[in-house]
C-alpha cells in the first residue's frame, strides 16, 4: 500500500533570468491499495512526476508524508527503495550494454541471486514478448523496446510496489497491449501499482482507482464511475476537463 498525505514541494528555478520559487506540488494526497492499479491523471506540469519522486525517496517533500508498505519515506528511504520498482520518465538504459546486461546490473545492485534473476527475467520477457531482444545491445532499440527493457529492470527484484511514470509514452498499439497484459498479471498477483498518465483511454481500460491532479493539487479521486458522477458528465474525458480545468468549463458554459 502506498499512502500519500498533503504533499508539498517547491523548487528554485530561473524564470526569465531571475531566481524564482516554482511550486511543483501544493497538496496532493491519495492511497493506492495492494492488488489495484491506481492512476494519477493530470495535465503536464500538474506535479505527477514530482509526487512519484517523493514516494521513491529521490526528492524530499517540504510538507506532508509518503508511506510505502507502512514505511515512512523520509525516515527510511533505503527500506522504501528496497520494496519499490520504478519506471521513470527517462528510461535511462545503457546503450552499449545488452538488454540482459542492463537488467542484470540492477539485479546485482539489489542483490538478487543470479538464478532467481534469470528465471524472473525469462518470465517477464515472455509476458512482454521481448525474448528476442535480450542479448542485443540497446543502441538501435525502438521506444517500445526500450520501455520493455526498463520495465523488466524495474521488476527484476519482484517489488511489492510499482510506480510507472508515463509508461505508454511513445508506444505503439502492440507494445501498449503487452504492457497492459503485464500490469493485469501483476495486479492479479496482489501488487500495488501506481501509474501516471494523461491518456484517458489508458486510464479507463486499466485503472481501478483514479486520482485527478491539477496545479499541484488532488482535485478528485475514486473509480471512473464515481468521478463521472461527481462532475456530472457523460464521459471521463469531460469529467477530467471539468475538474482539472475549471476555467475551461466556465468558458464552455
Amino acid at each position, binding site marked *: 500500500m502506498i499512502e500519500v498525505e498533503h504533499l508539498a514541494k517547491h523548487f528554485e528555478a530561473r524564470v526569465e533570468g531571475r531566481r524564482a520559487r516554482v511550486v511543483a506540488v501544493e497538496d496532493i494526497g491519495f492511497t493506492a491499495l495492494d492488488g489495484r492499479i491506481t492512476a494519477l491523471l493530470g495535465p503536464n506540469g500538474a506535479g505527477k512526476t514530482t509526487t512519484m519522486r517523493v514516494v521513491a525517496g529521490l526528492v524530499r517533500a517540504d510538507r506532508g508524508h509518503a508511506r510505502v508498505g507502512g514505511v515512512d519515506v523520509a525516515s527510511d528511504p533505503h527500506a522504501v527503495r528496497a520494496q519499490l520498482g520504478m519506471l521513470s520518465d527517462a528510461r535511462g538504459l545503457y546503450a552499449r*550494454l545488452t538488454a540482459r546486461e542492463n537488467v542484470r546490473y540492477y539485479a*546485482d545492485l539489489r542483490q538478487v541471486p543470479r538464478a532467481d534473476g534469470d528465471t524472473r527475467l525469462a518470465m517477464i520477457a515472455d509476458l512482454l514478448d521481448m525474448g528476442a531482444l535480450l542479448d542485443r545491445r540497446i543502441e538501435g532499440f525502438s521506444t517500445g523496446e526500450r520501455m520493455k527493457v526498463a520495465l523488466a529492470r524495474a521488476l527484476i527484484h519482484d517489488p511489492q510496489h510499482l510506480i510507472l511514470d508515463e509508461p505508454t509514452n511513445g508506444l505503439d498499439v502492440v507494445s501498449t497491449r503487452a504492457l497492459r497484459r503485464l500490469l493485469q498479471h501483476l495486479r492479479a498477483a496482489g501488487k500495488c501499482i501506481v501509474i501516471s498518465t494523461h491518456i484517458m483511454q489508458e486510464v479507463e481500460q486499466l485503472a481501478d482507482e483514479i486520482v485527478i491532479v491539477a496545479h499541484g493539487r488532488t482535485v478528485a479521486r475514486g473509480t471512473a464511475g464515481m468521478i463521472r458522477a461527481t462532475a456530472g458528465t457523460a464521459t471521463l474525458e469531460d469529467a477530467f476537463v471539468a475538474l482539472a480545468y475549471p476555467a475551461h468549463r466556465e468558458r464552455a458554459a
Partner: protein
Amino acid sequence: MTAWIVFRKELTDALRDRRTWIVVLVSSILAGPISLLLLSKFVASVEESVARREVFLAGGAAAPTLANFIQRAGGTVKEAPADFRELVRSGELQNAVVVVPPDFEARLGRGESIRLDVVFDDTSSRSQGPARATLGMLRAFSRELGSQRLLARGVGLQVLSPVDVEEINLAAGKSRGAQLLFLVPWLALLGAVVGAISVAIDVTAGERERGSLEPLLMNPVSTPAIVLGKWAVVAACSAAVVVLTLVGFRGAMVFIPSESLSALMQFGAAESVLFLAMLLPFAAMIAAVNMFAATYGRSHKEAQTYASYLTMLVNFAPVIPLFLSVRDAAWQLYVPAMAQQVVMMRALRGEAVGPADVLVPAAMAIGITMLALGAQARLLRNERIVFSR
C-alpha cells in the same frame, strides 16, 4: 560489494566505447615512442652537424691556405651555394658561411690583415652550434697565422698568448636536448589526464544526459559506493594510459639506436618505477577531480568544457618553473602536476630523489582524491544535479 558491481559494469561499458580505445592507444603511442623518436632525431642532428664541422666557404677557391687549415683541424670544406644568403635566412642552410675575398692569398702573402665575413642566422637553435664551430675555427686560423708571423720575426709564442684558454663546456652535447627534456614527464602527465577525460565524462555527465542517473539512485545502495566504483574505472583508464606511455618510453629507449638519446636522459628500470610512483597517485587524483567537474555537466558537451579547463591547468602547472627559472623550491612539491614534473625531471637528469620527493606529492594527490570523491557523493544526493537535464 556495490562498488565492485558498479566497477564491473562501468568497465564493460567503457571497454565497449570506441572513444576509450582511440584515446588510450593514440595518446600512449604519440606520447611515448613518437615524441622520443623526434627528440632523438633532433639531438642527433644537432650533434652531428657540430661533430662534422662542416665549414661553408663562399669563393673558397681563392683561399687554399684556409681550406688546408680547416682540413688539418678535422673539418670539411664545402663550397657554399651561390644563393647562400637566401638559404641561410630561410633556415635551409643551418651552417654559417664564410665569405672569402678574391685577393685572400695575395694579402696573406703581403702579411696584411684580411677581412672575413661570416654569415649566419642564430634564430634557429639548430644553427647556433655550427655557427659557433665555424667562428672558433676561424679564430684558431687567425691565431695560427699570427704566431707564424711572430715566429718569422723571432718572437716566442708565449708573448702572443700569455693566457691559454681552453673551452671545457660541461653541458656540451646534452645541453640543447635538455631544453626539450621537460617534454617527457609532461607528456606522461598529460597521458594521465587524457586517459581519464572521456570515461570520467561518460560515467557522470553521460549518466545524467541519458537519464540513467535517476533510476540508478532508485536502487537501495549507498551513493559513496557508486562513486567509488565509477572512480575506480576512471582511475584504471588513466593509469592504463600512464603505464602504456611509460612502456612506450622504455621501448623507445631500447629500440631507437641513438647514443645521443641515452646520453641525454636516464630512463632505466629505476626511473620507470619512480615515474609510476609519481604518476599513479596523480592518475587517481585526476580521475576524481575530473569526475567531480564533469558531474556539473548536464551533457557530454557541457562536461567537456569543464574538463578542458582542468586539462589547461595540468598543462600549464609544470611549465611555470620554466618561466620562473626557479629550480626545485620546496613549495613546488605541494603543487600537483608541478611537483610530479619537477621530481621526474630530476630523475631524468640523474639527480638524487629523496623519499619526501615521492611521498609529499603522493599524499597531496591522495588527499585531493578523497576530498573530490566525498564532494561527488554529496553532489549525487543533490536534487538539482540528479533531475535537471
